[in-house]
């Protein structure tokens, strides 16, 4: 056996007992998902309550911190594994629910059906004959609407292994892909990655193997790797979820890249908004170093490579690869002018390869199982799986992993449960500010709009890096476009007038339209600007008007309503609505009380709204839904 594989087997032997104790626990094991999303819903308090309650009861049990298994809609989640029984995932386990949960699972009942989301079966357990014998009456989670479209490869460990436990990762086959790669030549590794068909998950969909080959052939040393974990697209949180739940997958992928390209140092650049991933990745890097997986002579192979985690400071364009490089060089994070490309002169003017978190994370699986296995799921044109974060006006918000080519319709309507009760699907905003909006008619078409780059390109959009923001009929695309142009201007680095000036002009126009000042000539003008903006230096400015083109081409009717009839059909543009008292009822005094501008005044015994004061915040309507109506501002007075 080659030296790296032998060294790896020894590591794995040592790790196995640690994992065994968790995989087949002899006393109750509570997996608590501690991630940014679960924490927001109170997971820290749940964890503290669980520990306290267990010790108060003197219960013999273990607690393991894991990543978020993606069911954010049910946060905080706790997975309970009782010896000899299949695991059960519980949702909405806030701290106050902990005593109740423990009463049930440690008592006679053994389950708490009210909070149970379903039975969790991993391959190991399925093979051991648990299949078909879930805990009395509980559904198999894998068959639920949320899970059944999913193929979890990247996420196989997330929520399963300890988020800070390298031994769990190794025992489950982690770092085997690295050991295999180290027993191959760099050319062979690159060929394997090319054969898998893997392309970059950060947005541009460039073949990962080809990028690596550029760096391998580049002259100059040292060579650098960068992992782009900036994940700045609002509504995208897949990289975060992976780093929090399975940090070693990324490290292993970067090490394989180091071997394939000849790089000797790597930066993992994580956005400021992600303190927990920074913490988890730093810890994982340390653990990998302790095991001889990072640093000098990795697994006795002669590869020397180290990694460092850098925390960003709040800038969207630092996700653009040359902006990121500037940021690492300790200057303003402004995207650079290309050429030279990063492979020729990247960070510190040295040859550099930049990949997204998910791109690197796919590689260990490709090396471990082979390119053929990898390409066994996906569509005709695109192989493998992709993680997506589903959010917005949809019933279930969370993170999923589906084969490329899965219809987005199914992701929204089946996994997500569709729009909220009583609402209709209006569209989808995928992949952040540069990618446009797809209308419901396209999503609900025969093919369901497959999640892969080509169908999105055909309608002038980008699939993006994983964010899927769902719109229902209470949203307005003019309003959304205004938001994204604001975002684009706010985040513009300021180098190109076409970018910061173009986004500003678009905002001015949209703002005017959303206040009733639209003019017919706005349409040709809105078409002209994107042409000029294509001359911007980087994709930020070039693609910022994509949503304008969606508005012009895919949502014309809505735009026309705003322009010609000066009304917002969804009543989302504040400049086009007014609040009026339409009936006097007993809720009005409370409405007057809640109004932040004292705009609801009482005259001659009846209430009315002083339009000069009203800021149209909707608070009164929440309190007095019958008495207050939202009317079109420019319609006849009621």
């Amino acid at each position, binding site marked *: 056996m080659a030296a790296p594989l032998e060294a790896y087997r020894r590591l794995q032997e040592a790790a196995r007992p640690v994992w065994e104790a968790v995989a087949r626990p002899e006393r109750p094991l509570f997996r608590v998902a501690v991630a940014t*999303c679960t924490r927001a819903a109170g997971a820290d308090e749940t964890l503290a309550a669980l520990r306290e309650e267990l010790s108060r009861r003197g219960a013999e049990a273990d607690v393991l911190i894991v990543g978020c298994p993606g069911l954010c809609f049910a946060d905080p989640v706790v997975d309970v594994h009782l010896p000899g029984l299949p695991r059960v995932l519980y949702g909405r386990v806030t701290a106050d629910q902990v005593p109740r949960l423990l009463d049930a699972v440690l008592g006679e009942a053994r389950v708490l059906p009210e909070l149970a989301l379903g039975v969790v079966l991993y391959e190991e357990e399925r093979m051991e004959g648990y299949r078909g014998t879930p805990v009395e009456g509980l559904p198999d989670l894998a068959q639920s609407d949320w899970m059944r479209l999913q193929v979890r490869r990247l996420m196989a460990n997330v929520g399963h292994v300890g988020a800070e436990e390298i031994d769990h990762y190794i025992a489950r086959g982690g770092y085997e892909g690295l050991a295999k790669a180290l027993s191959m030549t760099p050319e062979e590794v690159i060929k394997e990655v090319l054969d898998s068909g893997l392309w970059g998950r950060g947005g541009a969909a460039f073949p990962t193997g080809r990028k690596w080959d550029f760096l391998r052939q580049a002259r100059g040393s040292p060579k650098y790797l960068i992992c782009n974990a900036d994940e700045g697209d609002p*509504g995208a*949180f897949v990289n975060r979820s992976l780093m929090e739940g399975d940090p070693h997958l990324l490290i292993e992928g970067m090490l394989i890249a180091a071997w394939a390209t000849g790089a000797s140092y790597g930066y993992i650049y994580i956005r400021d908004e992600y303190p927990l991933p920074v913490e988890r990745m730093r810890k994982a890097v340390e653990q990998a170093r302790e095991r001889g997986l990072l640093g000098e002579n990795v697994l006795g192979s002669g590869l020397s490579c180290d990694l460092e985690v850098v925390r960003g*400071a709040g800038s969207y364009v630092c996700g653009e690869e040359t902006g990121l490089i500037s940021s690492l060089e*300790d200057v303003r994070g402004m995207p650079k002018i290309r050429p030279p490309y990063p492979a020729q002169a990247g960070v510190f003017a040295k040859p550099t390869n930049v990949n997204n978190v998910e791109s690197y994370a796919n590689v260990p699986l490709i090396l471990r199982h082979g390119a053929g296995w990898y390409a066994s799921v996906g569509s005709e044109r695109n192989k493998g799986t992709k993680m997506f974060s589903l959010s917005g006006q949809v019933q279930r*918000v969370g993170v999923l992993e589906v084969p490329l080519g899965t219809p987005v319709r199914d992701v929204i309507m089946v996994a997500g449960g569709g729009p909220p009760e009583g609402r209709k699907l209006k569209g989808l905003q995928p992949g952040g500010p540069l990618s446009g909006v797809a209308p419901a008619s396209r999503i609900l078409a025969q093919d369901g709009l497959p999640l892969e780059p080509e169908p999105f390109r055909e309608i002038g959009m980008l699939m993006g890096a994983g964010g899927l*923001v769902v719109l229902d009929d209470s949203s307005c695309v003019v309003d959304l476009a205004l*938001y994204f142009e604001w975002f684009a201007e706010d985040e513009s680095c300021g180098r190109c007038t076409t970018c910061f000036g173009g986004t500003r002009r678009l905002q001015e126009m949209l703002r005017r339209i959303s206040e009733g000042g639209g003019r017919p000539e706005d349409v040709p003008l809105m078409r002209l600007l994107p042409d000029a903006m294509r001359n911007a230096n980087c994709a930020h400015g070039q693609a910022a008007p994509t949503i304008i083109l969606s508005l012009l081409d895919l949502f014309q009717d809505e735009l026309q309503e705003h322009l010609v009839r000066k009304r917002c059909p969804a009543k989302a543009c504040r400049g086009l609505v007014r609040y009026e008292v339409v009936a006097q009822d007993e809720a009005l005094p409370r409405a007057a009380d*809640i109004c932040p501008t004292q705009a609801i005044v009482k005259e001659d015994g009846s209430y009315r709204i002083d339009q000069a004061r009203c800021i*149209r915040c909707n608070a009164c309507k929440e309190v007095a839904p019958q008495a207050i109506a939202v009317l079109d501002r420019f319609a006849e007075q009621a």
Partner: protein
Amino acid sequence: MGLTSRHSSRFTPIDFIADDTGLVARVQALLDDVEPDRAQMLEALHRIQHELGYVPKEAIPFLAAKFKTTPAMIYGVLTFYSEIRTEPPPRVEVQWCSGPACLLKGSRNIRLALEAEFGCGMNESAPDGALGLRLVQCDGTCHLAPLVRLNGRYIGPLTVTDAIQLARRLKEEARRA
């Protein structure tokens, strides 16, 4: 504050930086092990902000010397990043998520109401300086949209009414404090 004008060289030796308030000495201690040329600027800024709550302008000449660059370049970096503050934060700060999921669920109404209640705009402090509003980006906690963050806690999904009541409670607490 600042560079001594006697020095015309591009880099100021650290000894020549005035430090009337002792701030620079504190910053210097924080950055002992930080090396220039090693992608450590952001780390340095985070450490300072973590300790002081913001990066004071008084630290600029020191940082310039430390990183072998000019004060102008440091100023450029400081002002580029939205999460680096150059002014002390208000005592209580409501952080309003500007992301798309929150937007679709009515966050703009919440923003208007908060601004009206506090009497200040986004990224400003109320006249008495105790309360402030800050715009933040989505961090993928959209299951709680629309939300605000307060002292690291997430509050959501919020109605406009909830937001107004929260603001009034905070104002009341600030008044009593």
